[in-house]
């Protein structure tokens, strides 16, 4: 393999990984607070369609990303109201959020189909990215750098800050956190809104980096991969980064191997496509086989908070 091709593969894989990473980072924080939001795919679609609409109307990429984050966070708060304030079933409500997002984005996106969206390009001067080796560092969309910064920020927040500790306490034992005076529901609302905003920004990646257009169901299931990835990464931000890039690598190698043809096509096409999911199942099996040590999932994950009962 030539250097140029290796660089090309890296650049493509980073693009493919970024939306999954962003969405999974948001979901990681949500799940750390003890809430399981299966609506990632729907929130990503809302983010994607809002991005396209705002870019086409105003031409401002940054405003578009902001609006996408706010819109998806608003959708997440609907989920939050139902599951946190009304104690509805989180799995069912999350699935409903995906259906809502799919439907809303299809309806709202109708005027914007059939139009090309300008890409959000690297923030660095083009001379820096002219050389292929430097392009690996400077050649990406700002959303890529943002996703990498957020890995560190979220790791730092969860591990090093008092607020992060409270969030984890709420996720691990909501009744104890409540009894020493932490606002369990309030913390979870914030986490859910943050997860929505990140999913919305993940949705922005589709029209701004990957495929600059709006079309119904643009994200084609990447939100579900993000959900699987959180489990794959056992709720740790840096493993999430590795996992997202591993998933991206598998998805990217698939098309590059097929394009190379000949001996590179070692695996059947369907198996390539199934690999990220097989890897997730494998990790789940490995996690559950670990003896002794505490289970990796936040202890209150998916359970409604009912302090009086």
């Amino acid at each position, binding site marked *: 393999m030539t250097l*140029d*091709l290796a660089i*090309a*593969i890296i650049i*493509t894989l980073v*693009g*493919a990984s970024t939306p999954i990473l962003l969405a999974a980072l948001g979901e990681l924080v949500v799940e750390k607070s003890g809430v399981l939001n299966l609506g990632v795919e729907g929130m990503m679609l809302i983010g994607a369609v809002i991005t396209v609409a705002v870019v086409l109307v105003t031409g401002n990429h940054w405003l578009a990303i902001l609006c996408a984050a706010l819109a998806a966070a608003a959708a997440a708060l609907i989920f939050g109201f139902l599951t946190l304030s009304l104690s509805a079933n989180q799995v069912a409500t999350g699935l409903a959020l995906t259906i809502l997002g799919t*439907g809303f984005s*299809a309806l709202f996106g*109708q005027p914007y*189909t*059939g*139009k*090309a969206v300008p*890409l959000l390009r690297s923030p660095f001067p083009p001379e820096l990215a002219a050389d292929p080796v430097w392009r690996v560092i400077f050649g990406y969309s700002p959303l890529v750098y943002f996703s990498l910064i957020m890995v560190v920020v979220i790791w730092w927040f969860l591990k090093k800050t008092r607020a992060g500790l409270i969030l984890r306490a709420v996720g691990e034992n909501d009744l104890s956190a409540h009894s020493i005076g932490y606002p369990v529901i309030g913390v979870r609302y914030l986490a859910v809104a943050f997860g929505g905003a990140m999913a919305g920004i993940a949705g922005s990646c*589709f029209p701004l980096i*990957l*495929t*600059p*257009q709006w*079309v*119904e*169901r*643009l*994200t*084609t299931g*990447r939100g579900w991969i993000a959900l699987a990835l959180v489990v794959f990464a056992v709720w740790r931000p840096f493993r999430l980064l590795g996992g997202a890039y591993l998933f991206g690598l598998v*998805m*990217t190698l698939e*098309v*590059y191997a*097929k*394009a*190379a*043809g*000949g001996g590179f096509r070692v695996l059947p*096409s*369907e198996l390539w*496509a199934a690999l990220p999911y097989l890897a997730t199942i494998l990790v789940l099996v490995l996690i559950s086989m670990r003896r002794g040590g505490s289970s990796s999932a936040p202890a209150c994950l998916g359970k409604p908070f009912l302090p009086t009962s």
Partner: protein
Amino acid sequence: MTVLNRRTLIKIGGAAAALPLVGGVAFAQEKVKVAFVLIGTPDDNGWNFGHDTGRKYMLDKIGADKVETTVVTNVAEGPDSERVFRELAQQGHKLIYATSFGYGDYVHKVAKQFPDVKFEWATGNATAPNVSIYNAKFHEGRAVVGTIAGMMTKTNTIAYIGSFPIPEVRMGINAYAIAARKVNPAVKIKVVYVDSWFDPAKEADAARALIDQGVDVITQHTDGPAALQVAEERGIVGGFGQGADMSAFAPKSHLTAIIDNWGPHYVKSVQSILDGTWAEGSVWDGIASGEVEIGKYNEKIPADVVAAAEKVKNDIAAGTLHPFAGPIKDNAGAERVAAGDVIDDGEFWAVDWYAEGVEA
């Protein structure tokens, strides 16, 4: 018209079943109800757009006073589609178009239960007394764009992004490859299957992978312009619209398009319902009858290339050129079609090899 999604359809279906006598009372002559079942949405600018454009053309020609259409979008190929077909039949649709290959088993199953309802299965391969099949010879269009690709490529490496390795796609690849190598024997044809009819991000990544490996002309057999947009961004020689004109997405790289024109067929078959002459059959037309059209040529294509492409198109329309005329070798070097012979319409569906020059 009414646009329904699967869920509302099922609800409305329940209501309609409860009130079977309401419909049609107010009309002097009852409108014939025709349904279109789509795998995606009409705004994909590709396959589904083509069918919906055909529907509108039919409505226009036959008249909204005589026909009423229902469009059901986003119906997955699978058991779910069976319910949709049954609901549509129960609602009194006289003719139901199933516009994707994977609906076949379910169309046939429901058709047996509703012998008075006619079904037409696009790209299908089996008929029944009330199930017809209709298809278009897209491979004739592939021969035209293959000619352009063969003459325009600078790297002698062109590509075909396929959905699934089914006969229709394989023969599209072969028609593209044979035509390209006729004008440029040095050309190689790389094939990537994305295992989906619709996955824009993956189609775009496939295009990136191909361009990174030396491809400079891409055609695709999926439902959207994602690959063309990558071609535009990378500034390669170009690509082709599939199903509809996609030049809005890639003004510099959109060389031309293979346009599906289902309208004339829909007019004919709805008219036969109105006349009571509908019969089981199989329709497979191409460039000659206008079901397959070639779009506008990009102005960057040199005049001699346009002339060569037009000649292929006109010769196919006139019947003097067959896209699969021998001698044809496969990509392992074995002769598959002798000189003077052709792959006829019957043999077409059994071809399981790729033509010379295809890397798949």
